[in-house]
């Protein structure tokens, strides 16, 4: 699993990247009450707004950690947005992206680097 400074995670399986927000991000947001996942078929460029996650208080953008085409979105978050808080780095995934440039994944932080980054916040 790789991580961005915007607190997204990426798990690459072949050329399919599953993406979501980190446990740290979920904790900072508080109780998630609404998630807007991307449409399947949408082409994303790394850094694009990909999804929106809303707590009671505020709406926050989730950015595409890699470029590619959305091949699946987690529809279960529509009825159960709280899954993002419960299991942010597993069942609370947002989308699966067919990556156009796998080297983008390699360039992201590994867990040790991400944890070191969190320690600076």
């Amino acid at each position, binding site marked *: 699993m790789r991580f961005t400074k915007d607190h997204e995670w990426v798990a690459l399986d072949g050329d399919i990247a599953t993406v979501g927000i980190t446990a740290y991000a979920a904790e900072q947001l*508080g109780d998630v*009450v609404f998630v807007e996942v991307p449409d399947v078929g949408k082409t994303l460029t790394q850094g694009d707004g990909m999804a929106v996650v*809303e*707590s009671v208080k505020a709406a926050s953008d989730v950015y595409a950690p890699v470029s590619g085409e959305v091949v699946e979105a987690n529809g279960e978050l529509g009825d159960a947005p709280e899954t993002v808080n419960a299991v942010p780095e597993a069942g609370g995934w947002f989308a699966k992206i067919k990556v156009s440039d796998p080297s983008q994944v390699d360039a992201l932080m590994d867990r040790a680097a991400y944890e070191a980054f969190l320690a600076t916040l």
Partner: protein
Amino acid sequence: MSDETLKKTPLYDAHVAAGARMVPFAGYEMPVQYKDGVLKEHLWTRESAGLFDVSHMGQARLRGVSPLSAFEDVVPGDFIGLPAGRQKYSVLLNRKGGIIDDLMASRPDDDGLFVIVNGACKDGDFAFMNDELAPQVTIDRLEDRALLALQGPKAVAVLKAHIPECADKVFMDSWATTGFGVDVLISRSGYTGEDGYEISVPGHAAERIWNTLLEDERVRPIGLGARDSLRLEAGLPLYGHDVDETVSPVEAALTFAVSKKRRDAQDFPGAARIVKELAEGPSRVRVGLKVLGGPPAREGAEIADTNGKVVGIVTSGGFAPSLGAPIAMGFVPSALSAVGTKLNVIVRGRAGAAEVVAMPFVPNRYVRKV
């Protein structure tokens, strides 16, 4: 505003010790939430009792020859006849009939009028009152006092152990007493739609009283995040968001703050506009909106009619924890303000269905008789 200029309430250390997330608000570092988070804090207040630090709000005594009569020069309500022991909601008006702030004014005792105003507006409010009312009235700010709110269905049972007579009071009663070993100014009111109390205490005693109340397992500390979602569900406007100096009490759906007598006499600031709006209807009015599925519509979201024409704007909105659905309030033309009117809210470029509903969104539970 840089952090160095932010003020702290006497409860700052208690908030930090309780794990609060502190944010700048009204010039103070205030707790937006504690460890439980906004959702649980909100629901706890609705089912048990929540304790809020609202010491950022402005407290003052208006003293003078006839402070009640003088106060009527800046508000549209009846205060001359306000009995000792009662509190009233009102609005400070500018000469155009716009709302400078909303406030609570009470007579906890015979010592003039006790006024509580919004934290973000307090310096301007008290300067305005001084400009309008001095030298007949002096505005004595009570900056050495803290303000706690204890809100929720179990507030009365909790507070009774410390201030026994609180159970015999009703909504909008106000009184001065000794509680927790200090002098207390207290009212049975609040900003959540629940039964509860707002308790003004000497700043030096605030932390001890705060901790004493939290020793009761029915009480949990509640941050400003849940205070906002609670007041939204209660249909109560937030100054600076739903109401500002351009908005009249009629537009703000606060017509109850304009008394019949004052309306007939037209003897308050901006009376011409306000009386005209009462007679003919305002061009825009604050309404409640239920968002029917889709994302919450938040402050700044456009409101459109069913033909897609933009007709208004959301001034407060979010997810209502007690309803499990998004709600909002905003301004629309009077012709589109009837309960049941179908509208759309525009969130991130997409129209979502909404409907005008009566406020409060969640029934209030004020105790009006005991």
